[in-house]
């Protein structure tokens, strides 16, 4: 069995960031590329990171909780 590996994969971490693996560019609205310093990045989704759009672990301090994300079968 060959598992299809998508070129970009986003893992929704419970109570945490979106982990992004693969070739992807994050840009400002006017099209300028934001610095990307590593192959796998974590995007903030608690809204309180000091280095947005990236995660800095602040979600743990503020007790950020996500609703369970239900996989489609």
């Amino acid at each position: 069995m060959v598992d299809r590996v998508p070129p970009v994969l986003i893992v929704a971490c419970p109570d945490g960031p979106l982990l992004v693996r693969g070739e992807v560019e994050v840009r400002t609205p006017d099209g300028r590329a934001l610095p990307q310093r590593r192959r796998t990045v974590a995007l903030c989704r608690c809204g309180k990171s000091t280095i947005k759009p990236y995660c800095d672990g602040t979600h743990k301090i503020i007790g950020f909780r996500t609703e369970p994300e239900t996989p489609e079968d």
Partner: protein
Amino acid sequence: MPALLLDDDAVLQRPMVLPVARGPVSAEVLALLRGGRGHDLQPLVEAALAAVADVLRDDDLQLALFCLYEVHYGGFAGVPDDLEWSPVLSAARLRIERDVEAVLRAAVRLPPRPEPTAAAVAEALFAITSAESGPSLARHLARSATLEQLREFLVQRSVYTLKEADPHSWAIPRLSGRAKAALVEIQSDEYGGGRPGRIHSAIFAGTMRSLGLDDAAGAYVDLVPAVVLTSLNTMSLFGLNRRLRGAVVGHLAAFEMTSAVPNRFYGNAFRRLGFGEETTWYFDEHVEADAVHEQIAARDLAGGLVAAEPELLDDVLFGAAVSLLVDGWPGEHMLQRWAAGESSLRAPLPEEAARG
């Protein structure tokens, strides 16, 4: 991103100078490394272990262990490479390790055992690492540390950080599948993702140089207390023993999960005293990197390992608990000494000593 381009030579690490003995066992280990016969090592180890009050805080035994491990890392200048597998040295290491591991197992309390699934293991690890009392050393540094204290902090950190990530790399060939891919993903980032100037230990060396400190491997080993050696030795113990692969994985997970937030404070501490990017790059890098690493380490590395080898669950929790205990001791030591108006180092830094 700081526009710092380091050439290959600037990030090379060379074998370290032999440290100064702190008692009979480390003296005999050092004599052996210098080419002596070492007939007395085993009885000296037995006597020291029988007499020691706390092997985890004993200068002589922890320095001896540090030297016994260093022959597996970058090694010592002038010491033949084949001593790495000296039967006498290996026997001494294994004997000290046996007692260290037993004391560690008695010292930590394991959290309630989660289900052996990746998600449950990750949740359990996030729970125990967030129950930490908080980064009090980091807060002190950010709010009120003096320049001397920040320099001491870098000196204390340098013993591990100049070989950052190396102890956990021993685990790579001992894992497979999801856990292996996760560990390599983390370590590749630690080692600069193919760019030598971005190896984390090399970035830290730049931080040291920016405060006028010597970035040579082992330059300050003689100045640090036993607990700093214990922190590194514990990682080496877990990393160099295949049977402890669960513990080294749990250790790395807890280490990453307690790193991003303190590093933000560390960066602020140096900014408060006017230092620029060449100093703070290391800490700023870790705010972003470790927020990524902790997710990978909890879910894919620790969670993936337990899902594949459920019998390793207790050792994963053990390794995490040990990191939370032992890796906090150097910070406690610094805060205690500074609160008493003293230096946290065993002797003054060379230039301070010269100044009198």
